[in-house]
């Protein structure tokens, strides 16, 4: 969070910087819109899509309501299957548990498959500080890891990069020929590079998509098979998960796997859906269950449903702001609409601009496979931020003035009449250029609305109809 705190409340500034490269911003928008349309085609083949959404939301609501019971059930069943369950209240405890497990086993090199939780806990820099080599094995994550950048999307971590950027990165880090930008050849090079890392690794760390209370098993969904390789070759597997990943029964899983891949990329199912029930023969499976603020969210009637999230990324793909401002503009581990709800709960001051990086269009709410009322929660965050004093004074002051005027029809009328007269008399340059454009960003790219001589109420008086 320190990274966002350092730069403060500046989604607009970062977005402006991203959009400055207009061609790239346009390409970013179109690439993600393509994923959204793929998703649309995929869900049209599932006539019961809305029923699935309802069912998934109901299962999540039920599970979150009885979370303590299900967590205990999961722990008992996972332990019975031979896994070891660890509990972490926050990111620091999570990181310490993982480090201790690695140190106890003398591990120096690990491979890691995609886990937004470990990103949230900033595990990589923590382990590296303690002398452990961490290799992200998801292709997109490996690319951003080379570039020392955070992922810009939770499913497509390197979506902000073009193939030429990837070519440059690989040329620098894994010795591909300079100028090589063929996706097939680049992927092949990454595959060879990663294969070596897999072979050398002494432990594998994975995220968890679903944990099943009834069976004590964890399920990991990937498209690259990197989790399977990373968790099968080494004898030590550490699975890190937020406590909201729980579902009650094996029978519930199908509801979510059907929703997840279609929502994420428009695939009917992820290429690999791997089930881990206990450790491999002669190995160890450790499951680290992390709270890190989730219990707090669980107590809130307004934000509880954000715990439904299955991290499919559909709200990012559909968000017209995200598509144009890029994931890094959010300055948080999870960007986009869901990130703009989750991030302020950990640090409202640092993430104060995020609930306002939104037109309240509601597309995220309609696309969400687990029916999180995202845009309403963003609106609720605005109220919470205002009551905490985290809304810019200029915005608040203008609303105080507007409310004062609007509560007095005579003043509204007076201000309307004289404002328009003034606007019509003043030279255009004074309204549109120089200090005016600095004070009123509206006119930087737009003409002012028309300033008619008469308001509707004045016309109605003439019509003599009141």
């Amino acid at each position: 969070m320190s990274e966002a705190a350092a730069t403060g409340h500046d989604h607009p500034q970062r977005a402006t910087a991203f959009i400055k490269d207009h061609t790239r911003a346009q390409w970013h928008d179109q690439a993600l819109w393509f994923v959204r349309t793929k998703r649309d085609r995929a869900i049209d083949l599932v006539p019961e899509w809305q029923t699935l959404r309802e069912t998934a939301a109901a299962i999540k609501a039920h599970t979150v309501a009885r979370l303590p019971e299900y967590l205990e059930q999961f722990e008992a069943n996972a332990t019975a299957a031979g896994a070891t369950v660890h509990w972490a209240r926050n990111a620091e405890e999570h990181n310490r548990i993982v480090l201790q497990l690695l140190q106890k086993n003398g591990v120096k090199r690990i491979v890691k498959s995609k886990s937004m939780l470990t990103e949230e806990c900033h595990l990589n820099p923590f382990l590296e500080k303690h002398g452990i080599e961490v290799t992200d094995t998801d292709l997109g994550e490996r690319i951003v890891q080379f570039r020392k950048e955070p992922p810009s999307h939770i499913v497509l971590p390197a979506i902000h990069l073009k193939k030429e950027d990837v070519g440059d990165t690989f040329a620098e880090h894994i010795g591909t020929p300079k100028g090589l930008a063929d996706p097939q050849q680049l992927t092949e090079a990454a595959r060879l590079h990663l294969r070596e890392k897999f072979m050398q690794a002494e432990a594998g760390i994975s995220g968890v998509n679903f944990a099943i209370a009834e069976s004590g098993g964890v399920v990991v969904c990937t498209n690259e098979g990197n989790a399977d390789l990373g968790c099968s070759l080494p004898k030590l597997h550490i699975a890190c998960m937020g406590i909201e990943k729980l579902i009650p029964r094996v029978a519930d899983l199908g509801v979510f796997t059907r929703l997840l891949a279609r929502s994420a990329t428009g695939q009917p199912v992820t290429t690999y859906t791997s089930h881990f029930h206990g450790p491999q023969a002669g190995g160890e499976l450790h499951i680290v269950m992390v709270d890190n603020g989730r219990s707090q969210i669980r107590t809130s009637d307004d934000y509880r449903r954000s715990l439904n999230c299955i991290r499919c990324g559909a709200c990012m793909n559909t968000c017209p702001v995200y598509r144009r401002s890029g994931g890094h503009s959010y300055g948080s581990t999870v960007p986009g609409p869901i990130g703009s709800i989750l991030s302020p709960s950990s640090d409202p001051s640092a993430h104060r601009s995020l609930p306002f990086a939104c037109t309240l269009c509601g597309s995220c709410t309609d696309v969400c496979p687990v029916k999180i009322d995202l845009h309403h929660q963003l609106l609720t965050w605005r109220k919470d931020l205002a009551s905490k004093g985290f809304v810019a004074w200029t915005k608040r002051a203008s609303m105080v003035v507007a409310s004062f005027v609007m509560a007095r029809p005579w003043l509204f009328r007076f201000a309307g009449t004289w404002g328009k007269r003034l606007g019509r008399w003043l030279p255009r340059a004074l309204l549109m250029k120089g200090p005016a454009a600095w004070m009123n960003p509206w006119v930087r790219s737009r003409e002012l609305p028309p300033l008619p001589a008469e308001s509707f109420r004045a016309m109605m008086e003439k019509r003599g109809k009141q």
Partner: protein
Amino acid sequence: MTAARRIGLFVPCYVDQLYPDVAMATLEVLEKQGLSVEFPSQQTCCGQPMANTGCDGQAEPLARRMVSLFAGYEHIVCPSGSCVAMVRHHYKSFFSADDAAYQHVRKNTFELTEYLTDVLKVERIPVRFPHRVGLHSSCHGLRELRLGHSSELGRGVPTQDRARHLLSGLQDITLVDLTRPDECCGFGGTFAVAEEAVSTMMGCDRIADHERAGAEVITAGDMSCLMHMEGLIKRQKKPTRIMHIAQILAGRPVAAGGPR
């Protein structure tokens, strides 16, 4: 039967001041249906700008004014999906659930195309509009009021699109097909100035979609979206015109220069 109804015209504050003809066209469309419509002149603003900025303390007195001004009307009609959504879905924190005046206003405030289609059951409006028209689906009308079918829900959910239904009944009109049928224009209230760069890009992208589809006129149920797009169109000196749907339904010609 309808003649006996007391209908209140709810005009968004900025429409009253900046786009009076949109309100006048709304009034005319309703009067052509044989309704007697009143404009309570003490009305100002529903409080949405304040609420959407998180300033509930500033929105609440305006919400209370709205409800007390309109509680005496059987139906309240407004040419804006966004302002109606405010009244219908976002007043609940300002009133107790058993407040009769609030419940009456909440249940009986309608967006114009919704009122024409769902309440008056209008099938066809006898107006000729020989133009290629792009229909911009304003987000709050679409996803808060469900006036149409949002693309995210997929084909499994059939919903009538009120505006499209009314427009397609006009004589000689051509409704063009957009690549992204319901993407936001990027207005978003204070978003338009606070996030000026994103807002502008969103607006330009929307306009380009309409242009590619060959629209002469962009219309919508919300003047705020159109005000934003009009500002961009005029700055870029583009030929595309914008008109509120009430103006088209009232038979205004395009040559009048759009929403004056």
